[in-house]
């Protein structure tokens, strides 16, 4: 890196990133519904903190939605439909359209990370890997949420995680994970494709 010559001037401008309208819709609905899920979820958290129980540290009011436990639950169990169904139709869409093979982390990305020399290609591979990896995390949030919402009908979900507390912890961990992801994902997108790439997924 230190002694490598300055990169040659590009002969042509990079292609304008293209996102399908469906990808943009998914991205918007995902952001908004996650924001509602997290703020209402923290409101529910405060009724009996996962860490510390009654008397445990609580999240401050500006991060909460719903005003009190019942209000937080109302928002949480409304926004869950948008969050979960958005994931569902998008999952079907990427399967049917085969975007799964083209637009998500693939073997060539892993190869670029292991043996590649091009730092831009490597950054791109990290970017793809990151937004691919968040999908199972979002699905895990749905699964653990369902287990806590209907622990009698879906008792096998509680059993899967061993205990009620473990289920609560895993469900809660999705909050810091998603927030950290959002930050790193934004920075990676900026690095890989600049504002042009960021704009392309929104507008």
């Amino acid at each position: 890196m230190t002694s490598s010559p300055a990169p040659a001037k590009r002969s042509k401008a990079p292609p304008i990133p293209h996102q399908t309208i469906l990808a943009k819709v998914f991205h918007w609905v995902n952001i908004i519904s996650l924001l509602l899920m997290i703020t209402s979820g923290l409101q529910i958290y405060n009724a009996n903190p996962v860490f510390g129980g009654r008397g445990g540290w609580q999240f401050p009011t500006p991060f909460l939605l719903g005003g009190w436990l019942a209000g937080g639950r109302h928002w949480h169990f409304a926004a869950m439909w948008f969050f979960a169904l958005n994931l569902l139709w998008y999952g079907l869409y990427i399967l049917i359209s085969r975007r799964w093979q083209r637009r998500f982390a693939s073997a060539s990305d892993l190869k670029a990370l292991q043996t590649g020399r091009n730092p831009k290609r490597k950054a791109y591979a990290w970017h793809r890997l990151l937004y691919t990896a968040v999908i199972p995390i979002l699905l895990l949030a749905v699964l653990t949420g369902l287990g806590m919402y209907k622990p009698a009908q879906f008792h096998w979900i509680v059993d899967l995680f061993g205990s009620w507390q473990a289920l609560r912890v895993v469900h809660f961990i999705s909050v810091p994970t998603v927030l950290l992801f959002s930050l790193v994902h934004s920075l990676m997108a900026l690095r890989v494709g600049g504002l042009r790439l960021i704009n392309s997924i929104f507008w």
Partner: protein
Amino acid sequence: MESPSISDRLLSRRRLLQLSGLSGLGLVLGGCGTSLYSDQVNSVFEPLNQSVEELLLNPQKLIPNLPLSAIEPEALLINSFQGTPKIDPQSYLLSVNGDVERSFTLNLAELQSMPSTSMVIRHVCVEGWAAVVQWGGVPLRDLIALAKPKPGAKYVYFKSADGYYESWDLVSSMHPQTLMVYQKNGQPLSPENGAPLRLASPIKLGYKQSKWVTEITLTKQLYPMTGYWEDKGYEWFAGL
């Protein structure tokens, strides 16, 4: 006569849109720090959520019992809305009435002489905590069967000695694991846990499981007052 031009109208379309945008913004900002439309959101989505819960509920399906070793005696927190009422078990009577063929009352000895059921289940509180508890008592459906519900009876109201009140759908009330219990974790039920008699079930949230029940009333309809916490804004069905 000339028709009025656009500018003569009291409100032009553009002006109306501007105003509605501004007042909409005011509504959004005005909601900050309050419950932020949670009541409106609830009135739209709770009917949907309730129908999903009713669909998920299999009236005959037993929720698997947890092992006795899973019982968490310390985890069951005490909640009540105004302390523990003083009840003399000797003079205690449970009354079953309403839209039934045969109203009756039972004292504690009569209740305890009925065939009893024991279960080890997870008690889940709306606050987020849960506790594995062993409960022992009489299946509510046996009491309802004794009273013979009239055709059209669809709801069950529970009145408690402390003034707490609840209502359930009949289907959940007839679930084989919905019990009127007088025993907890192998011991007689303690007063703060609802003695002499309380509701216990794996298929409803904790606030549905009234303590200190003195009266069970079957009804054909749901009245405006559906339950102490429900009337304050919590969900009525609250199925697990």
